[in-house]
């Protein structure tokens, strides 16, 4: 079988498998967030936390819950990282320095998992599994909770109640993320991933040298790393490391897991909104963008343009031999489309335009299909824009799912949309004009700009992958990117919840013949168009100076 046929089958089987889980996983998520029953274990948790699971919150109460939980999480993780040398299983490693600890704490709480450190030489096992991996679970659950609260805003009327954040958080963690992760972890071990608490083994190699083979609770972390679209690797090499991603089929499984929840959430949305077809429309728009991107990057990496790839005869630099160039490209597209940020190859060494696609994927705003939860709420914001634009064309008040999209709603949506581009472009500009910003570049010229643009796009959109040539462990980048991650996560969340509150308070309007049907192919096409136009207008100048200048 040729490389091209194999790559097509890799993509086709992924799409087929996602189509198979779309309904059962989406329905399961629907039951989890809409059920009125509490499991006994969950009741115990609510008692320990001291919250009443029956009480619902207003949008501001829900937002305060999210922010309080995240603030406490940042402080807890910061302290954990600073004190790791005094704890068990630290492997003799020193405390993480203050700016690195700040950056890492923010990074994992915001579901970004940007890594300004090298896992195997910075972190002990305890802080990995009891600090970072916990945030892998709960930050994903927070994203799903916020998305569900937004959908409740669309589906409820004349109320200020959007659900209970603590209940959503606990249920998603206990009933969805934990069981799937446990199974996935065991499957990964069967493929060769390591899972132990050992400090490593010194092996005496065939040539008489000593090689320190590392250990760690890797598989349990790897599973939630991809399932929760987190992306923070146990090791520096992330999913390229043979202990995290040992074989070609675990590579397929990891791509599948990182897409599974974001792709299935539109089903949950459709069920809650009372029309499966509403979910199909959203997932169709996601699929058009995602498949387009995956095919494009495969073609670009396969054609290996650029001086070094031409000299080599293939874009193999930074790719593992067991995955091959094309399956690595599919992983790269999936990880940047989902805000995961795990990498199984070095994006920095991709062809100029292939690397450009990974940047563009993040600049789409992580909506195709986006992160766990954040992908759905990001796409619904764009759906609001789409009905707004359609309303402007025909001169009537737009509505979506029976709710009027008036000035207040559009203001919230606009604030949401403007947050991340502002952070990306302002952050890149600041880094380019400062000494610390330029000093971090590994590559020079346009590729250096791409490295910086990639870093700020990744941090602000909570992706976490990198053009890893950039040295980001200094105070400048640690601070600036930490701020981008924090603001890029929580500003949009507050605006989403504000929008949800505003929608929930409305009385629904009955659909009329003038209502734009949002479950039709026409709407899908418009949604894709609006997304591309908004992103192109915002980022084309920056892309022209980086990857486009390098590749053309």
């Amino acid at each position: 079988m040729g490389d091209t046929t194999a790559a097509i089958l890799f993509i086709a089987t992924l799409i087929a498998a996602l189509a198979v889980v779309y309904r059962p996983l989406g329905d399961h998520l629907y039951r989890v967030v809409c059920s009125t029953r509490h499991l006994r274990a969950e009741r115990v948790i609510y008692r320990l936390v001291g919250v009443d699971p029956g009480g619902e919150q207003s949008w501001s109460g829900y937002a305060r819950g999210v922010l309080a939980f995240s603030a406490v999480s940042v402080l807890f993780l910061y302290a954990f990282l600073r004190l790791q040398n005094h704890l068990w299983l630290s492997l003799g490693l020193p405390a993480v320095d203050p700016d690195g600890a700040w950056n890492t704490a923010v990074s994992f709480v915001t579901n970004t998992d940007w890594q300004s450190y090298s896992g195997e030489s910075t972190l002990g096992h305890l802080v990995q599994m009891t600090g970072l991996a916990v945030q892998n679970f709960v930050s994903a659950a927070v994203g799903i909770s916020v998305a569900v609260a937004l959908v409740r805003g669309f589906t409820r009327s004349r109320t200020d109640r959007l659900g209970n954040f603590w209940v959503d958080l606990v249920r998603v963690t206990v009933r969805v993320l934990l069981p799937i992760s446990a199974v996935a972890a065991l499957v990964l071990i069967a493929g060769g991933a390591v899972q132990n608490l050992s400090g490593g083994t010194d092996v005496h190699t065939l040539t008489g040298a000593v090689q320190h083979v590392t250990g760690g609770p890797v598989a349990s972390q790897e599973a939630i790393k991809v399932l929760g679209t987190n992306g923070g690797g146990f090791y520096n090499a992330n999913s390229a490391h043979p202990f995290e991603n040992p074989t070609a089929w675990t590579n397929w499984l990891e791509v599948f897991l990182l897409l599974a929840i974001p792709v299935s959430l539109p089903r949950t949305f459709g069920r809650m909104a009372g029309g499966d077809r509403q979910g199909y429309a959203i997932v169709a728009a996601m699929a058009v963008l995602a498949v387009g991107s995956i095919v494009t990057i495969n073609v670009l990496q396969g054609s290996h343009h650029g001086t070094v790839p031409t000299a080599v005869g293939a874009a193999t630099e930074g790719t593992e031999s067991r995955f091959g160039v094309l399956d690595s490209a599919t992983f790269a597209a999936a990880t940047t489309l989902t805000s995961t940020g795990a990498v199984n190859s070095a994006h920095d060494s991709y062809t100029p335009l292939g690397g450009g696609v990974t940047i563009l994927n993040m600049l789409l705003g992580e909506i195709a299909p986006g992160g766990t939860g954040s992908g759905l709420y990001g796409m619904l914001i764009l759906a609001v824009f789409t009905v707004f634009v359609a309303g402007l064309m025909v001169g009537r008040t737009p509505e979506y799912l029976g709710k009027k999209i008036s000035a207040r709603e559009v203001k919230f949506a606009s604030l949401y949309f403007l947050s991340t581009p502002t952070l990306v472009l302002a952050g890149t500009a600041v880094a380019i004009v400062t000494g610390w910003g330029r000093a971090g570049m590994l590559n020079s010229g346009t590729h250096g700009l791409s490295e910086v643009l990639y870093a700020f796009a990744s941090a602000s959109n909570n992706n976490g992958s990198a053009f890893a040539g950039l040295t980001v462990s200094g105070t400048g980048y640690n601070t600036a990117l930490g701020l981008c991650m924090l603001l890029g996560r929580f500003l949009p969340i507050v605006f989403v919840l504000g929008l949800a509150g505003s929608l929930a308070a409305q009385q629904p309007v009955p659909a009329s013949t003038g209502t734009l049907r949002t479950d039709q192919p026409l709407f899908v096409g418009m949604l894709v168009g609006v997304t591309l136009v908004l992103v192109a207008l915002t980022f084309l100048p920056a892309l022209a100076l980086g990857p486009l200048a390098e590749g053309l």
Partner: protein
Amino acid sequence: MRLPGWLAQHLAALRALLVLTVLTGVLYPLAVTAAARLPGLRHHADGSLVRSGDTTVASALIGQSFTGPDGAPLVQYFQSRPSAAGYDPTATGASNLGPESVVDTAADRPSLLTQVCARSNAIGAREGVDGRRPYCTPQGVGAVLAVFRRDGLTGPVTRVVSVNEACPATPFQATYQGITVRCAAAGEDYSAGVVTPVRGDAPAHPAVPADAVTAGGSGLDPGISPAYADLQVARIARARGIDPATLRRLVAAHTTGRALGFLGAPAVNVTGLNADLDTTYPFHD
């Protein structure tokens, strides 16, 4: 006493975090670790270690360097791919050099292009094949000119420097558009010239395979392409005094095809292959 609302909120948040930490950060990983003790999983969970007699000689999943104390490749072993980490599992990672990394910034910081050219030349010499590649000089550095024009980017060419060939080298090309090409003088800044890689007449499909001249993503890649393994068979058969056909069968035994016929790329596990070679056909100096 009733706590203020914001304080109660943060206390609930702290308690929620602690409870979820116990659940997802202690019970979950320990349960998975315990389940990984089951036969069938245990060997993998421990790192797929390979033993030879009393010593642990490798992890089957982690690549090794097969070089002597001086860093030179040992002729009796299949060579792994280049590695940005030197096959050190405590410093994993990729080179991260970009596709247009073509100008050497210093003697100890060669561009990716020069690294590729140098590796290709060395492997070609070692295996007795043509090591030439596009954009490479015959000496094995990146064939790259800095072209200076009268008005910056336009106008007639005024000066041309082969940036990766330090003086007193003879540039790979004598003239460029009628102007004599000069070697690069130490310490001079050529960034005002237009960087112009020169394709040359090397074949588009070089004899040395792509994976042999590029580093992997982890720095621990245990695999090489079947083509690179095949290229090395004659040398190793000679060094160990065995029949090349026998050796090819051994290589095939350590080759993993695409999983399920379509996932990934075929690869030869160099660590396992070399360990097997040492056991079956020991090398005598």
